[in-house]
């Protein structure tokens, strides 16, 4: 069983603010998901390596050439808050201003 505390911990890890109702809802959902996860755990996979790529290809490298970059102004125009050519964020590190 997954408890409320663990759900809150997951939400903190995922940087996701949840309401009281959502905490209850996702506690229920995570627990019902566990049932299907348990079904997978019954499958014998001894000696089997995991697949992370659907189609096997030789690792692809391209030439290291300088290409065109996106225009700075256009990219910054999408930012919720920008200052002096940078994205502006609230304080991250504690300390004096």
């Amino acid at each position, binding site marked *: 069983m997954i408890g409320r505390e663990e759900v809150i911990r997951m939400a903190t890890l*995922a940087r996701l*603010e949840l309401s009281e109702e959502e905490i209850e809802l996702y506690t229920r959902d*995570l627990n019902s998901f566990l049932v*299907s996860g348990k079904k*997978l755990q019954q499958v014998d996979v001894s000696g089997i390596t995991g697949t992370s790529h659907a*189609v096997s*290809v030789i690792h692809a490298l391209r030439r290291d050439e300088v290409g065109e970059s996106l225009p700075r102004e256009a990219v910054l125009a999408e930012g919720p808050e920008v200052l002096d050519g940078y994205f502006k964020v*609230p*304080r*991250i590190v504690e300390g004096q201003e």
Partner: protein
Amino acid sequence: MRELAELLQTGQVSSTELVIACLEQIKQTDGVINAFLTVDEQGALEQAAQSDARRARGEALSPWDGIPVAIKDNISTRGLRTTCASRILRNYHPVYDATVVERLKQAGLPILGKTNLDEFAMGSSTEYSAFGVTKNPHDPARVAGGSSGGSAAAVAAGQVPWALGTDTGGSIRQPSSFCGVVGLKPTYGRVSRYGVVALAPSLDQVGPLAKTVEEAAALFSLIAGEDPRDATSAGAPAFQVPRWNAAVVQGLRVGVPEEFFSSGLNAEVEAAVRRSLRTLEEQGAVLKPISLATNDYAIDTYLTLVTAEASSCLARFDGVRYGERVAAPDANTMFAKTRGAGFGAEVKRRIMLGTYVLSASHYEAYYEQAQRVRTLIKLEIARAFEQVDVIITPTTPSTAFRIGEKRNPLEMYLSDLYTATANLSGICALSLPCGYDSQGLPIGLQIMGDHYQEELVFQVGRVVEASVERGPKVEV
């Protein structure tokens, strides 16, 4: 589309006339259907005028120059709003075009607008769109399917000749099946994902939706092939519309997996698919019963992997570089509030599940286990293609369900029961209409082919298509 291309070529119709006809049909029908999130009337008319000017100079960029197209709203279009049907991106205007969009523009196709989807492509009905559900043109009380429901409904309702969608576990094929159109999930890596907002990068593919197999093949030919900006497309072959040849089915070995015809399959769907199988047999195909026992694990494997990958991919939506922000005095609170307010319920559910299966204490038991079961699924598919040339199944266990009918998320996930295996194993799969049920709803048939076997899958699809009677015309 061949007709449209000919009419354009001979000057009997102009691109501008085509775009105006599409805009008119959208005005008439989209109040009910809700297939489009953004209609770019001005942009499409400008691109059409340029196309007409090119044609007049005899400089058409491709045979399809001037035929309008719609794009699913999780594919980036430069300067044209791209929302992923999410509140967090409701005013986002990409700075660049996805490679697939760039290629369609290079072929001269005017971009008509952006189509509705389940938020970030997470869902099977478009009911999880932040901007309202897309209705099925065959019955507006029913879903169009999802997540590419807007693209499928727009094609079915005659709002646009063809459209692009994305497919991570069935998101092109299932809505194609529900709306009675043709949709292809290409081989993993055959189409560039550059500029496509990722749901699960090891499963996502972009593909075409159209009215006929030939049209779907034509649209696929414009987007397929290697792109230096997507390393997973390395070595991917381009595609040309083949010379159609019904003789390909003579001696063709068609795998029929018993697990896809078992309990839970609607009887009318089964009857229609079996009728098409008999038709193929009459034309010389050899039906071979096969077993794909690992399909029993497909949905659980898919769910584990897709939530894990999604929770990682969606970390980029943090209110810093784009999208909506909810202000807060410190960064972590700003991230949490922004994401809490910007994401809908299903997106949050998948982020929570994905965070859980990737967390240190559960990683091995869930995520790694699912990756290993995925290998078993892949191996079984590979063995099947040693014995058969294609595998034919129903696309979905039922026809389109009613809006609001599936309230339990686990029940919703089951509508991908027959489609997720193709994504997990990376093979290509086509859905096309093979009949209608007693309520007049379209039934979809799925043809799966081995890696890079799109041409064969289209050839077989065309034979099936020719044997199926046209269903009731959509009235909207």
